[in-house]
């Protein structure tokens, strides 16, 4: 039993099933991020937790009591919407106090609470303004203030930052993280921005087409994606997925991968799982993050499994602190991340280092991770 339990929850709209048997347990004080491509059912799941959508089957429990039938106004849940949904006819202060008023809190107490939260969010000078007189960033703050002031059991956020410009989005992200560290309220946060997911969460739930793909800490999701979808979805640029074949190498089993020239090279597997030892000849997909295929200067010197590789550079893209370099491996174009001042240049051969201790293998048919 966790604090917020989602047990076998399914959602149907008519005959269309948009969520399939979702099981998630959110611990008290946790910051869970739901991430996935558009239309995968994130908002639907969030709305069901809030009580704005009916649960077709399964159960949602808070503090081990079933809330499926509890009216949204009776659940102690606050939500921040993508459009902010500030009441246009009320001032900022009125917006923040409305929920308190509905819960029968006295006027003097309301004022004190609003004042406190307004100071926390630095919106005290805005309290008498109408929402139409605020900038996007200010509206965002007020929407958060309206949720915070109620001090609910659970915060729900549905893409709260997607209407802000890039700079403000990064600032607010940090701010939300700080607030969570300070208040420790259990939070479920929906986004389709995987960087937001990585930076904010204590755990991430990756969804696709109404199925939960993987749930785990950001590090787990990043280093050990459970299938090809998660590997390709999380991380920017995403994980390189390279067709390869298990062979007997000179030092245990290895992977045969084709280079730009069409020649084959063997990459030794680092601590291969025992199950792989008798699978010589099997086709697999090798997953490597861009920072695990890099130049000797940028390579992680502490890695126990650095292996050299000579390959043709197709193109280089400088992005300030990093240089992204494209090469061909296993017949697909892959991306390497190198230092910003890396001196490799396009159309020349360069020596690269592959960190095989970070490698993950997938089965091409089932698309699941095999080691």
């Amino acid at each position, binding site marked *: 039993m966790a604090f917020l339990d989602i047990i076998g929850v399914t959602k149907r709209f008519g005959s269309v099933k948009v969520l399939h048997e979702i099981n998630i347990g959110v611990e008290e004080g946790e910051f869970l991020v739901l991430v996935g491509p558009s239309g995968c059912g994130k908002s639907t799941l969030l*709305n069901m937790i*809030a*009580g*704005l959508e009916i649960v077709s089957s399964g159960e949602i429990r808070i503090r081990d009591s079933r809330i499926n039938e509890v009216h*949204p*106004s*009776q*659940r102690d*849940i*606050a*939500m921040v*919407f*993508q*459009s902010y*949904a500030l*009441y*246009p*006819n009320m001032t900022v202060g009125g917006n923040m106090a*409305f*929920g308190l008023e*509905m*819960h029968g809190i006295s006027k003097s107490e309301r004022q004190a609470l609003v004042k406190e939260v307004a100071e926390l969010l630095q919106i005290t000078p805005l309290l008498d303004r109408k929402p139409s007189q605020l900038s996007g960033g200010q509206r965002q703050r007020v929407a958060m203030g*309206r949720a915070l002031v*109620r001090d609910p059991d659970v915060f729900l956020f549905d893409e709260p930052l997607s209407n802000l410009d890039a700079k403000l989005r990064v600032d607010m992200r940090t701010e939300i993280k700080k607030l969570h560290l300070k208040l420790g309220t259990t939070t479920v946060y929906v986004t389709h921005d995987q960087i937001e997911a990585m930076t904010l969460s204590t755990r991430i739930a990756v969804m696709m087409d109404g199925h939960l793909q993987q749930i785990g800490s950001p590090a787990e999701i990043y280093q050990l994606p459970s299938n090809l979808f998660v590997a390709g979805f999380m991380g920017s640029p995403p994980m390189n997925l390279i067709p390869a074949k298990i062979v007997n190498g000179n030092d245990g089993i290895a992977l045969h991968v084709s280079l730009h020239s069409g020649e084959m090279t063997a990459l030794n597997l680092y601590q291969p799982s025992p199950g792989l030892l008798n699978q010589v000849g099997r086709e697999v997909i090798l997953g490597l993050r861009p920072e695990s295929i890099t130049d000797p200067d940028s390579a992680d010197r502490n890695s126990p499994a650095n292996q050299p590789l000579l390959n043709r550079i197709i193109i280089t893209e400088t992005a300030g602190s990093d240089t992204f370099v494209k090469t061909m491996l296993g017949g697909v174009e892959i991306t390497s991340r190198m230092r910003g001042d890396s001196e490799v240049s396009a159309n020349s051969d360069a020596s690269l280092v592959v960190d095989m201790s970070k490698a993950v293998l997938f089965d091409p048919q089932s698309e699941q991770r095999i080691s």
Partner: protein
Amino acid sequence: MSQSRDNSLPTSHFTRALIYTALLIFAVYYLLPLFVMLTNSLKTLDEIRAGNMLALPRSITIEPWLKAWDSAQIGVDPSGLKPYFMNSVLMVIPAVLISTMLGAINGYILTKWNFRGAGVMFGLMLFSCFIPFQIVLIPMARVLGLIGLAGTTSGLVLVHVVYGIGFTTLFFRNYYNAFPDELVRAALLDGAGFFRIFWRILLPSSGPIIVVTIIWQFTNIWNDFLFGASFADFDSQPITVALNNLVSSSTGVKEYNVHFAGAILAALPTLIVYIVSGRYFVRGLMAGSVKG
């Protein structure tokens, strides 16, 4: 108003002159009847019979106005239009308020509390806007008789409310359709119930559409003749029916000056409503199409 000039395309002086001439002609054409009524209502009967209709009064008299208001012969009583004016007021105010309120609640439910068959329900209400008055006369008379409201002002209020709901619902539904659902959801999570959300969130933002609906309902109900003539008794007749009686029942001489004064009296409330709130009317009609 000054904005429309900034936005207008550059035109030659000639086109300008042409446009203004045309506009002037139309304005005169529309204002002429009002002018005739107003000037002749201020003349004595002798002067009307002697002179021409378009001439200004030689000596102004308010006698016809006073007579039309409280001593002209209407039906059997020399009561003037006053009691009937009051009948109209007593009919129109509750009918407008009730139908507007019901339209607002209907629009709220149809857009924000989607239930099975909401579309069909709305379709039927919309359909009611197109049912000709004449068709419902006999069934309505029967219903009024059955519930004991035949010949009363309350009966007329009921008829106008029922007939108006289709339009008022249409107005509010379209207005609330553009109103974000997330606001209702936010209010729900804030702990507000069905009526609280309506009262505290939607209604305070509905100013323009309320004005439109009130003007629409007011003019329609105030100007209604058919229902008034069909369902009212002598002591509940609205002013439109009384005006007709005034004009047609005069024995002997036709007092045109009194008739004109009476007609203006009957039209005055709708004129005032338009002049006072016409600006909001236009703004309200626009509000649905342009997101604020």
